[in-house]
């Protein structure tokens, strides 16, 4: 009698029960996969900002523009190391108006400030030398099938061209990734000049400045030094760490997010609880059978292993399939969640999910099995 044979028999004994347990686990982990990926994509932005990147924006409101002259004025501040600037383009694709995160940036300095961007040097040069070209993130390149050299047309829900043309045409000069493969690459970078020359209004303004501060200045000292420079001007500024800014954003996502998170995690736990209980009951039903196996010479350890293997099969197979479904759901959602960007399932999420599955399998099999394995064979055999 091989282990595989025994396992097959175990699984075939209560086909419906096994199928139902698998369905529950499948459902639970598809929810887990979607939800964790969303959370991870939110915090991925924050995590990479462990570096001291800072933002300077209008004190009035982050949507209020700043004069482009602030770029050179900021560069002259002693605490400031490398500085660049960006402007929200409000880009969208096609008649469905699918939003794409598009920034008009200062091309010479932007990638120096965002040094976690990975891209071949010749693509950067090609981009910098052609103001009608863009860099696109790997995520968008894959999703929309863009290759280097492709022509793309974007609409803007923010800017109107002076020539009244409603679409903006660009060449894809390069495709970039991030150093940490789990970080989202949903961005399109175009030349600030391309936007500034074509737009009908708000010429020579930028959205915000982004810079690295010098090591010998703290973030706080840098922020007040920068804001002091522009104090009492028409456009006063507010300078904060990019990390802090993103945290504000996430916090503001609001309590709706918190309610949804609470309800879903409670539900995830409960579905698993019901399944775990069913499994534990199924193991306890085998009191007599385990006693017989021990009587004919099975080692207790092998019995535990068999049950653990059974639990692994019932939990890991549908669990992994559930993560698969989660990927499909995440793909289908697209830019539904807007500025949060798309979420893809990172390796970290998958690893965590599998860890949960293994621990769960252990808890529902070995723990109840241990209880019946400790009984004296005679007692177990006489149990109902």
């Amino acid at each position, binding site marked *: 009698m091989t282990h595989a044979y025994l396992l097959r028999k175990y699984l075939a004994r209560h086909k419906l029960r096994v199928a139902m347990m698998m369905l529950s686990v499948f*459902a639970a982990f598809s929810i887990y996969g979607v939800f964790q990926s969303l959370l991870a994509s939110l915090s991925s932005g924050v995590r990479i900002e462990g570096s001291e990147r800072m933002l300077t924006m209008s004190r009035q409101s*982050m949507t*209020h523009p700043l004069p482009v002259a602030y770029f050179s004025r900021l560069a002259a501040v002693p605490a400031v190391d490398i500085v660049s600037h960006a402007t929200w383009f409000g880009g969208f694709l096609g008649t469905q108006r699918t939003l794409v995160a598009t920034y008009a940036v200062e091309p010479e300095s932007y990638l120096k400030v965002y040094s976690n961007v990975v891209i071949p040097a010749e693509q950067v040069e090609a981009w910098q030398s052609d103001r009608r070209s863009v860099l696109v993130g790997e995520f968008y390149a894959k999703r929309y099938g863009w290759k280097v050299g492709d022509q793309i047309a974007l609409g803007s829900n923010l800017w109107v061209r002076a020539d009244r043309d409603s679409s903006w045409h660009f060449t894809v000069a390069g495709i970039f990734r991030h150093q940490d493969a789990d970080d989202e690459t949903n961005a399109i970078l175009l030349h600030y000049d391309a936007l500034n020359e074509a737009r009908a209004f708000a010429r020579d303004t930028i959205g915000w400045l982004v810079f690295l501060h010098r090591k010998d200045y703290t973030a706080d000292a840098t922020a007040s030094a920068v804001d002091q420079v522009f104090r009492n001007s028409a456009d006063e500024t507010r300078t904060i760490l990019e990390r802090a800014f993103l945290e504000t954003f996430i916090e503001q996502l609001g309590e709706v997010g918190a309610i949804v998170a609470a309800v879903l995690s409670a539900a995830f736990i409960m579905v698993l609880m019901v399944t775990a209980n069913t499994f534990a009951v199924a193991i306890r039903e085998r009191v007599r059978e385990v006693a017989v196996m021990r009587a004919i010479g099975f080692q207790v350890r092998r019995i535990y292993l068999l049950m653990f293997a059974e639990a692994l099969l019932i939990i890991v197979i549908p669990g992994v399939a559930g993560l698969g479904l989660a990927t499909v759901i995440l793909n289908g959602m697209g830019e*539904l969640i807007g500025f949060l960007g798309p979420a893809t399932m990172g390796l970290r999420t998958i690893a965590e999910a599998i860890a949960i599955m293994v621990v769960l399998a252990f808890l529902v099999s070995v723990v109840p099995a241990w209880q019946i394995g400790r009984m004296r064979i005679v007692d177990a055999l006489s149990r109902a």
Partner: protein
Amino acid sequence: MTLKSFITLLEIQIRHLMSQPVLAALSILSAAVVVAVFVAAMSIAAGIDNAVARAGALDVVLVMRTGATAEANSQINGASVEILRGAPGVLRDKDGAMISPEFYSVMEIEQGSGKKALNIPMRGVDARGIALHDIRIVEGRMFETGRAEIIIGQLAHSRYAHIKVGGKLRLGSSDWQVVGVFASNGTVEESELWSDLRVVQSLFGRNNTVQSVRLLMEEGQDAAGVNRWIETEPRLTAFAQSEPIYYARQARSLTSLINGLGYPLAFMLAAGAVAGALNSMQAAVISRRRIFATLRSFGYSHRLVMVSTVVEAMVLALIGALLGFSLMYVGLDGSGTSMLSNETNSQVVFAVSVESRFLKQSIFLALLIGILGGVWPAIQSARFALRAELADR
């Protein structure tokens, strides 16, 4: 099948249920989870709809810059506002066309120590604009023309404890006095701060640019007529739409998260929970197989045993549904909450609304869970043969 024997049967089932509290609890829990998740999703969506989708007046047309998806990313200069005064179909009185040019911008407001800043939208309106909107002051007074005074919407006021009537608020580089609270039938306008248009424009250095223009239309006149006129007017880069349609679109963008994510997940969860309920019921039935076999030998029919099992499953699911609904009702109903709008990048405040109609849907859902989770165990329950069961011992 007599009613009496059916009741006897149910009694036996219930007595056994009592002796297996864990299995009963699992069945109840499964149904409660499904109902709670559905009720939460529906209540949040209903809250958003109440606040956003119902906003706007049928006789008001909203004009924004071509391509703008929300007031926050629209811009209309002073010259265009003057041209819009001549739009056809607009109501006029002795002071001219009844239009309201409006400033709209998202303000970052500090919440005090340790807390993150909030993005709250601010609207600047003139006297005519106030008359165009259906608002009333519920606390304090209206702002005075020409002064840096603010009134705050009721929903926002109840959410942000640090903004008090009589207090000061720092916006940009100037201080503003909060002088009153206004109500607007619980709509999205109550998420906003309002002030005098001219003051806002000058303190924020916007010259005479506004974000949108609202036109009060004569009866029978609509946005289509305004758009036809705009096409013949080359100086304008704008488009018109009816105010309710604008707000309905905003609501859709907010609820898309719930529709696109909440419901698929709730559905998956329901499938998982039904599977759990089925397993619990199945376990319960198997543990009672000797009783079923005995009952059958006493002459209870197949059908009677089956029906009583399904009824038991439905009763358990129903208890679960009531539990799930009550938890959500107590925990969520009326709780003020807010959500960051994708379109305007600002907080939309609304009250989660656990409506009584959801109770009916919860009960329906419970009965469905009961049937789905009970039928197969019921078929099993009627199959046990007495001889086999007794011989098993």
